[in-house]
Each structure stands twice: as structure tokens, then as C-alpha cells.
């Protein structure tokens, strides 16, 4: 199986690698994993008062497709409202990166990660 040039680009030059302070009230953290392949993904968003995602970070241990999916997603969510970010579908990620069928689950993992990050942020705001 060969990776698409977009996957290779994200793999070699991953965008927004790193992390925010998990305890920060403006940060939402999504941690997800895929038992079948052992991939682990952390995706974090920093949300401003207007409910817009200002910045995003990720750290992924996994294959090139998993890294590319999360890297791409951090680029996409920046500047989006939480609602807009919720609407991102794994199929859009898979299409953009030209993922082969066996790697679709990597894009599912990324979609689950952003949803988990948003849920974490909203849970923090709810208790405030």
C-alpha cells in the first residue's frame, strides 16, 4: 500500500504538534485510541469567548494515515465554531488524504478525537 502525497506531506511536516495545558478552562482535550492497531491520538482545542476554535494541537502515536488525519484536522478546525467543527465528517478527511479503505478507521479516529475534545470543553464550561 502506498501513501498519497498529502499523507506523506502531513507525516513529514505535521502541523500543530504539541499540547496545551489540559487544566486550562479554555482547552478541550480529546483522547481516543483504536485497539485493533494500537493507535493513540490526543487532540486539543483552544476556544475563545465567542466559541471559536483559535488554535489546535495534536499528538498521535500511530501509522502515517493516523498522523496525517489528526494533523489535517487541527488545520481544519482553526477558525471554526464548535458547531462547525462537530460537523466535520471522517469521509471528508479520508477524501482529502485519499486514504485507502484499510485506513478509513484512521479518519474515524480523528473525527472521534475532535468530538471528544469538544465534549470535554463543553463539560468544563457546564460546571463553571
Amino acid at each position: 500500500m502506498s501513501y498519497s502525497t498529502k499523507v506523506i506531506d502531513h507525516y513529514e511536516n505535521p502541523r500543530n504538534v504539541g499540547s496545551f495545558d489540559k487544566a486550562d478552562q479554555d482547552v478541550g482535550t480529546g483522547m481516543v485510541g483504536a485497539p485493533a492497531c494500537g493507535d493513540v491520538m490526543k487532540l486539543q482545542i483552544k476556544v475563545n469567548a465567542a466559541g471559536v476554535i483559535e488554535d489546535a494541537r495534536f499528538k498521535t502515536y500511530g501509522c502515517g494515515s493516523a498522523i496525517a488525519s489528526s494533523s489535517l484536522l487541527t488545520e481544519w478546525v482553526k477558525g471554526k465554531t464548535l458547531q462547525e467543527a462537530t460537523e466535520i465528517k471522517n469521509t471528508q478527511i479520508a477524501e482529502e488524504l485519499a486514504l485507502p479503505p484499510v485506513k478509513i478507521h484512521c479518519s474515524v479516529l480523528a473525527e472521534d478525537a475532535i468530538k471528544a475534545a469538544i465534549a470535554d470543553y463543553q463539560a468544563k464550561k457546564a460546571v463553571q
Partner: protein
Amino acid sequence: MDGVMDNPFERFGIAPIFDIDEPHLAETFRRLQRVVHPDRHAGGSEQERQRSVEQAAAVNEAFRTLRDPVRRARCLLALRGVDTQEGVRTFRDPVFLMDQMELRARLEEAREAPDPLGLLSEVKEVLQKRRVALIGEVSGFLRQDTPESLGQAAERVRRLGFFERIAEEANLLEERLTDCLPRGGMD
């Protein structure tokens, strides 16, 4: 898993339980291997030879499942109608995943560390401890054999999937490190 699954416990004539007698398992494997070995049927008809090749493969496959605790647990769960759903279910326990991230980060650090093999063996020790503990839990949950406990066993099998992967990474790293070390350069 479909209904025509070969039941490895039946093939080996042992009770379908998790805590199996390992020496007995190995002994049974050798006995079955002798019985079905294609060399024993070399003089037989084409059909007999074909059948013996198939039987030998099935015995090997059953042994692979029975000897490995994770495969064995997966098989027992399947026999009780519980799918571990490792391929379809995203794992979300943040505490467990954070621990996985830390272990992976330590493996990465080992690559660059002044004493990579020392760090690596520390990580491998932690991996082994966690794995043994999880297998112990799987054993307990399978013994309880309630719908609730089988669900818990499946959850532990999913956790073990992450440990299988990270152990592979650790072994790869170990191979690379031991290959790269100058001969006689370490004392």
C-alpha cells in the same frame, strides 16, 4: 465470527476455559501434530494427503489461538457470543490512553537516551507488569461468566490490544539498537 468457526478447544479435546494447563496443551499439540502430519499420509490418496495438509494447518491455527492468552480470551468470548469489537470501537478511557501515550513517549525517549537499552528494558518491564495484571483480570472476569463480567473481559482484551502494539514497537526498537551497537563497544 460465524457459526462454522473451528473450535480450537474441541480440536484439542480440552475444556473451554481460560486457565488452561499449558504443559498439557503443548503435549497435546505435539501428539496431534504427529497424527495429522502430511508425511504420515504421503502414501495415501490425493484426497487423503490434501485432507492431512488441511488438518495440520487447522491444528497449528488452534494451537496459535490456545497458547496466546489474548487470542484465547477473544476465542472464549466469541464462543459465548461476545464480540470484542476491537476493529470498530473507538477506545475512550482517558486515564488508560494517557498512560499509553506516556509509555510511547518513553519509548521515543529511549531512542535518544545515553543508555537506550537500559531505558528500554525499564519500559518493557512496565509493559509486562501491566499486561500480566490485565490478563489476570481477564481470567477473573471469564471465570465469573456473567453478561456483565464478559463485557468487562472484552474491555480488558481491547486494552491488551494496545499493549500488543506497544510491545511490537519496543521489540523493533530493541532489534535496531542491538544491531547498531558497535561490537565489543559496550561493557
